[in-house]
């Protein structure tokens, strides 16, 4: 169809059937039109002319379609016209009373790259039906000019043509302003992959992203357009890749790519309409809409979000803790087995590296794998169901109050897994101010690396207590509540910091974006497990790489230099033995045991020394034990009185002594002997503790910790915690690893307590809470710093983030600790 009249522009009219397209066409052309057929099809083509000022405008009335798929000739003709004839502007006429459905075509036009103007027709009917549309806001969200019209009354037509002329004046800019839907983390990589394979010369077939989407939809028409533009082999490779992508999407999402794409488009539309359309009459009918009426409700949305989060943490703890407990026991068993390769009490370097460094260091982190995987699984299920998009929507109102858009919450949500991809996700924010603000505060959203720290501290200092029952379904414990509170504190601090930044360094208007609300869907188990594994694998790989390397280096720094052997230690040991034997001799005399009491004490001393030198299940210890029993039996056989003393000694602390046997009379003597043994044991333990402490303090790490300790004391931290926090800059999990190393290296003989129990001995719950707080607020790790540096394009922002977060962490923790101490919630540092 060629009209040889000179024209200033060509305007295509598109829209759903019965949207008023023909009315507008007639209003503009005065009803004068050429009617023909598109080549090869029976679809009618209508074209007319109009004038605006000195401009002559050709109007083409495209067939009425609901979408631009390839299912009908009308749809194919409409989109081919846009691709081949390249009209200067496309006016999409929408029936306002059915806005969401009509917007589907508009979104597809935007994907196609058509320079677009939207005519919101029948706006009078929509208003009468109780619908209020914020046209300006919606226009901003979509990046497309919108003009309300009442075509049958001729209202809005001039404004519509003016908008069309403005778009036609610079169509490239108009297309550039349009906001396109994103297809989600399963589909976007596939779209990007296929788009990258579409060569530039295929522009005729449509822009590369659109072609990629069509390939995922298995659109044969779009493929036919590629045939003349690509060599067969190249096309075959592209089609093969598309088939692969479709299969992958189907296996992960449980539905065809075409359906997921449609869902995402509707999610985009739904999100835009949620923000801009107010219905005074309840008209929701779709299930997703009904659920959203509650989930995104102004008053219910946030409490629901909090309850759901609490449930997630509760289930994670409930299922994960027992599993972690088994791993903890296994780790200690393995470390014990390694040490048995060397004589007991050996100071072997290699043994220490293997058992104290690798097993107890890296193992201390790996025991949290069950909890971490469970949490990632829960998050994956929430994401795949579509709920997380609602969470972002719910946060949108809050974000607006601090000068950000809810879209900023999405990188922050990602930051709950890891800060680095969260910071990278800020690329989706167009405004540099928004990007920088989000990037700088994002680390305050507690990442997965901090989880082992929280779980360790909570388990060590806050014994499990059921607080209340949630709707009679689940018992909520103090542990789950405390874990959730760490996340909430992080969110609160992030929002406060963002508000401060937006009020000071980054003043400006809030940018607008569509908050997409894809329909709810039942997550597939396969999809959820894949997402869980992806995140969990990163954690495991980090444990096997950076944490492993860091723990080895930290072990070396905590083990060397070794202090010289202190002769006072041996002297203390000898003195303790002498004092014990002297006490035993006194008891022997007073109890009338005729030297057998002293002999008994000597035999027990020799057994204790054998226990120090040999492993319990070794042959040497077995022989020593037999020898002890033989000697004691011999003493008992020689003397009746000693036999009664022995009976009292073995039954000490119980009521198991027969009065008739007469042993009860020797109970005080037996008790005194036990006390003497206890005193000897205490003296030796004190000596060992001191030796272990000196060994740690003498090391490089100890000296660094001591140097930093004065600055950290106001926060309630001693040198051990300070060094662990320093070490945690490489990766937050290393805090747990380093505490594992410190307590393994600083272990005292016969002390088989787990890490949690040892922490309980040295610190208070208040200090434990402050450790968690400091870990929450301070920078997660060096890669976060580097990511900020690269994404902001300036090292000053990265350094500012490091300094700011460190000062904030120190300040908040110090205040909490000092106030807590003043209120009597915990004592200070150990003596």
């Amino acid at each position, binding site marked *: 169809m060629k009209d040889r009249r000179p024209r200033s522009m060509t305007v295509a009219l598109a829209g759903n059937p019965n949207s008023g397209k023909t009315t507008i066409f007639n209003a503009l052309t005065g009803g004068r039109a050429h009617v023909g057929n598109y080549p090869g099809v029976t679809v009618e083509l209508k074209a007319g002319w109009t004038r605006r000022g000195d401009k002559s405008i050709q109007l083409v009335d495209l067939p009425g379609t609901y979408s631009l798929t390839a299912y009908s000739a009308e749809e194919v003709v409409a989109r081919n016209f846009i691709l081949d004839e390249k009209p200067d502007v496309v006016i999409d006429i929408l029936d306002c009373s059915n806005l969401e459905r009509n917007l589907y075509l508009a979104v597809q036009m935007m994907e196609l790259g058509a320079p677009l103007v939207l005519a919101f027709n029948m706006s009078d009917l929509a208003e009468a039906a109780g619908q209020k549309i914020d046209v300006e806001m919606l226009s901003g969200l979509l990046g497309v000019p919108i003009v309300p019209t009442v075509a049958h009354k001729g209202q809005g037509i001039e404004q519509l043509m003016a908008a069309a002329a403005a778009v036609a004046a610079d169509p490239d800019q108009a297309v550039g302003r349009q906001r396109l839907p994103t297809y989600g983390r399963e589909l976007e990589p596939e779209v990007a992959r296929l788009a990258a394979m579409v060569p530039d010369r295929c522009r005729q077939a449509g822009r590369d992203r659109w072609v990629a989407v069509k390939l995922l939809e298995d659109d044969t028409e779009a493929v036919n357009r590629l045939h003349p533009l690509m060599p067969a082999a190249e096309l075959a490779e592209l089609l093969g890749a598309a088939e692969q992508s479709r299969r992958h999407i189907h296996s992960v999402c449980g539905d065809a790519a075409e359906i997921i794409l449609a869902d995402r488009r509707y999610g985009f539309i739904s999100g835009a309409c949620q923000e801009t359309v107010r219905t005074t009459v309840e008209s929701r009918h779709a299930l997703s809409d009904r659920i959203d009426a509650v989930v995104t409700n102004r008053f219910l949305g946030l409490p629901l979000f909090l309850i759901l989060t609490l449930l997630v943490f509760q289930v994670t703890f409930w299922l994960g803790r027992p599993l972690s407990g088994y791993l903890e026991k296994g780790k200690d068993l393995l470390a014990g087995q390694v040490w048995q390769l060397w004589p007991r009490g050996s100071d072997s370097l290699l043994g220490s590296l293997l058992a104290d460094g690798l097993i107890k260091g890296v193992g201390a982190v790996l025991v949290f794998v069950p909890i971490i995987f469970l949490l990632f699984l829960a998050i994956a299920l929430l994401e795949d169901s579509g709920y997380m998009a609602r969470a972002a929507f719910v946060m949108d109102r809050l974000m607006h109050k601090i000068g950000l858009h809810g879209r900023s919450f999405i990188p922050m949500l990602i930051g709950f897994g890891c800060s680095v*991809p969260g910071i990278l996700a800020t690329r989706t924010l167009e405004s540099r101010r928004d990007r920088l603000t989000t990037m700088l505060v994002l680390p305050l959203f507690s990442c997965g690396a901090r989880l082992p720290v929280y779980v360790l501290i909570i388990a060590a200092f806050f014994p499990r207590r059921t607080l209340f029952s949630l709707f009679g379904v689940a018992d909520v414990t103090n542990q789950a509540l405390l874990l959730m509170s760490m996340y909430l504190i992080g969110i609160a601090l992030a929002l406060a910091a963002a508000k401060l930044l937006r009020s000071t360094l980054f003043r400006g208007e809030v940018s607008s974006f569509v908050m997409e609300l894809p329909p709810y869907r039942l997550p597939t188990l396969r999809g959820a497990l894949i997402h869980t594994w992806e995140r969990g694998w990163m954690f495991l790989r980090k444990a096997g790489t950076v944490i492993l390397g860091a723990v080895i280096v930290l072990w070396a720094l905590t083990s060397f230099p070794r202090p010289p052997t202190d002769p006072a230690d041996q002297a203390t040991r000898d003195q303790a033995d002498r004092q014990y034997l002297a006490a035993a001799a006194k008891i022997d005399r007073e109890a009338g045991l005729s030297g057998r009491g002293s002999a008994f004490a000597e035999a027990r001393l020799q057994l204790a020394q054998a226990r120090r030198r040999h492993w319990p299940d070794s042959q040497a210890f077995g022989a020593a034990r037999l020898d002890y029993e033989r000697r004691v039996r011999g003493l008992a056989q020689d003397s009746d009185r000693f036999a009664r003393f022995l009976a009292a000694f073995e039954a000490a602390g119980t009521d198991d002594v027969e009065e008739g046997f007469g042993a009860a009379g020797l109970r005080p003597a037996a008790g005194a002997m036990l006390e003497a043994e206890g005193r000897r044991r205490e003296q030796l333990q004190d000596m060992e503790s001191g030796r272990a402490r000196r060994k740690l303090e003498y090391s490089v790490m100890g000296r660094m910790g001591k140097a930093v300790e004065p600055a950290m004391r106001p926060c309630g931290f001693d040198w051990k915690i300070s060094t662990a926090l320093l070490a945690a800059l490489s990766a937050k999990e290393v805090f747990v690893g380093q505490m594992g190393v410190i307590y393994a290296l600083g272990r005292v003989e016969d002390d088989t307590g787990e890490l949690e129990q040892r922490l309980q001995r040295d610190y208070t719950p208040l200090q434990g809470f402050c450790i968690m707080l400091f870990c929450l607020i301070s920078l997660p790790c060096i890669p976060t710093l580097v*990511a900020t540096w690269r994404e902001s394009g300036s090292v000053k922002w990265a350094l500012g983030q490091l300094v700011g977060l460190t000062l904030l962490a120190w300040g908040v923790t110090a205040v909490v600790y000092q106030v807590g101490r003043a209120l009597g919630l915990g004592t200070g540092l150990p003596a």
Partner: protein
Amino acid sequence: MAWQYVIVGLIVAAAAAWLGYSIYRTFTGKGGCEPCRRCWTIFGCPPEQEKKDAEKS
């Protein structure tokens, strides 16, 4: 026992060198692959990913 010092020294030196190299790769953007560049491993990314990154750059 001197042999223990040698073995332990080699292991610690290797860990320190590898850690330092990983930090260097992170700072220079050479570590890992898009999008996060933080795999922290000297073994790098799968070959297809590295090839894609090379084509992009």
